[in-house]
């Protein structure tokens, strides 16, 4: 019997990529994707279900589709993309309802993978160079995205304690770079002059977007309960990141940095507070636990930066291609369920 997977946030970057990858896995029988918006990439056999952001119909879907695996990718880490309230609804209330549904009586859920972020470790001056999974942050979270993710991890922890028969895996990703993903860091690196804070040159760690998807598939295939950091090897100074990108830097003052970053925000490149913190002290997370479980990275931190930069150069030459795919419910229905469509006999 194959897996029956539910993906939250199908229209998000990660949800879509993951559904695409899972469609190639013959071990996976059913893929159901939830989102408030329609999928943005073409999917062959994933079933899309429109929900509100706090998943009120979720327990019915879990029961009806006999879902055994939940991949929770609908977590907002980029705080520049929405208001605090919306982020709270998606991250905290969404996770709460997701786990309420997954732990309802008669639930068939056996595996849960949550895509968290290394922002839960915070950034502080007294931090160790490397955070391992057991370590906690030095100060209580102040930034809203960090508070939000902290609350999410609290629900994951509670769910794991209350449901000892479920494999709960929490992956904490460091800053992601790659050819396609857009984050506050990638936007900052696309500026003609890369912002830095005067007198600081913290060390950054990156993970390539392919390694993100591969790591989620890896834990799904190998069932590894617990927390795992996911990040490329190596820490590199921010000025070196800019150098790999072939950019010069522009220094923001060390005092009143947030105010100095306001003009950038008005120009469309917001540097959120949590990134300004990173630009001061940086952060490293120890990736050895996942490696010991057998995972092989394809990119180092510097390799991820290089891949991003190469894609950037390509785009600047050939331009961005507008996605041609538009989700149309009746067309998708036709291809999935009409008897007129011939499918491979299996």
């Amino acid at each position: 019997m194959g897996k029956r997977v539910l993906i939250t946030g199908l229209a998000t970057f990660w949800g879509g990529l993951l559904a695409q990858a899972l469609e190639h896995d013959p071990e996976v029988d059913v893929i159901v994707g939830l989102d408030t918006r329609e999928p943005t990439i073409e999917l062959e056999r994933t079933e899309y279900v429109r929900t509100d952001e706090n998943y009120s119909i979720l327990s019915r879907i879990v029961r009806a589709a006999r879902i055994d695996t939940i991949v929770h990718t609908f977590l907002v880490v980029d705080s520049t993309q929405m208001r605090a309230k919306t982020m709270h609804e998606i991250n905290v209330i969404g996770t709460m309802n997701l786990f309420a549904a997954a732990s309802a009586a008669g639930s068939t859920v056996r595996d849960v993978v949550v895509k968290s972020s290394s922002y839960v470790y915070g950034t502080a001056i007294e931090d160790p160079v490397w955070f391992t999974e057991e370590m906690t942050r030095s100060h209580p979270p102040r930034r809203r995205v960090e508070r939000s993710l902290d609350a999410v991890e609290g629900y994951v922890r509670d769910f794991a304690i209350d449901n000892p028969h479920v494999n709960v895996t929490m992956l904490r990703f460091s800053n992601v770079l790659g050819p396609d993903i857009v984050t506050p860091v990638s936007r900052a690196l696309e500026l003609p002059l890369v912002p830095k804070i005067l007198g600081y040159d913290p060390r950054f760690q990156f993970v390539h977007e392919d390694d993100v998807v591969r790591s989620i598939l890896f834990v799904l295939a190998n069932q590894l309960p617990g927390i795992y950091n996911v990040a490329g090897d190596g820490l590199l100074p921010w000025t070196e990141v800019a150098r790999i990108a072939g950019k010069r830097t522009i220094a923001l003052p060390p005092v009143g940095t947030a105010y100095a970053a306001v003009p950038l925000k008005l120009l469309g490149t917001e540097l959120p507070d949590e990134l300004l913190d990173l630009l001061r002290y940086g952060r490293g997370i120890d990736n050895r636990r996942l490696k010991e479980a057998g995972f092989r990275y394809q990119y180092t931190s510097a390799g991820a930066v290089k891949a991003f930069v190469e894609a950037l150069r390509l785009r600047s030459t050939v331009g961005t291609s507008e996605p041609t795919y538009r989700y149309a419910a009746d067309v998708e229905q036709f291809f999935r369920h009409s008897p007129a469509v011939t499918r491979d006999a299996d």
Partner: protein
Amino acid sequence: MAETMERLQDVRALAEDTLAPVGFADAEPVDADALALAAELALDEAAAAGHAALVPVPKSDTTAPTLDDPRQSDVDEWGRSERMRELARKIYEPLYKNWFRAEWEGLEKIPEHGGALLVANHAGAVPSDAPVIMHGIESELGRPVYGLADQLFKSLPVVGVMWSRVGGVVAHPDNAYRLLREQEQLVLVFPEGSKGPGKHYSQRYRLRRFGRGGFVEIAMRAGVPVIPIAVVGAEESMPIVWKSTAAAKLMGLPYFPVTANQLMFGPLLGGLMYFPAKIKLRVLDPVHFDVAPDQHRYSKSRIMDESERIREKIQEALYDMLRDRRSVWFG
């Protein structure tokens, strides 16, 4: 969280045992053939779609290919850059050789390989002992020394980056453990902390409390010896003649000194100009702890005893060296 997760694994293993006969065990490892097939399929698809294959690597794959790592600087994970360090040594060499005329005794006791925790007395308003020790060992033994220090340095713009590039690391137990146990490096620490350099000139060569013995615990956990070093001369290179507690509090500094150098050269230049005191360093016998490394905890009283013993050794060595010293300037 980690603890609960670990407990959870135990509980889960138990649950699996009891539930397995009922056909619950989905936990079989992935079929290798199916994976290979999936990989092939994904590759075909990827070729069509222009994407990289996104299929999990099977667990049996032990050949870790060396990844492309297009670094452009030699800054290591701790922030140290050998190139910057080399430059710093070049600049510091005249100061080391001609100004302080540093002189070592027992340098051969510092190992050429393997981790060791170097422990020394700390003195002078802007301590001159740390760069002398690091410079001396690096140029004589040709191996790097990482200096553990208060996070205060890291918070200062420019200074923090420079400090980090020349081998400064925030004194966090986990940083020290990795440097000593996993990377077998030499690590320098001043257990007196800021109490050493912050003391009045009248208190010179009287060692302060050695913290709470954290350095002994780290050395025990990392399974490395502690190598005590006694330094004479740093005290006189920048003596504190007056201290302001109020100003220190106001500026959030551990101490706010007025030095003899400042009285002589002015407040700013005096912060940079050392007196040409002769610096002598004596490496004492390495202290090995007869305990197993990697323990969860070590006896607190044992730690305090060892810490006190090392403190006394350095103190005795200092008095011994001072007995031999004829002149502050010429040794």
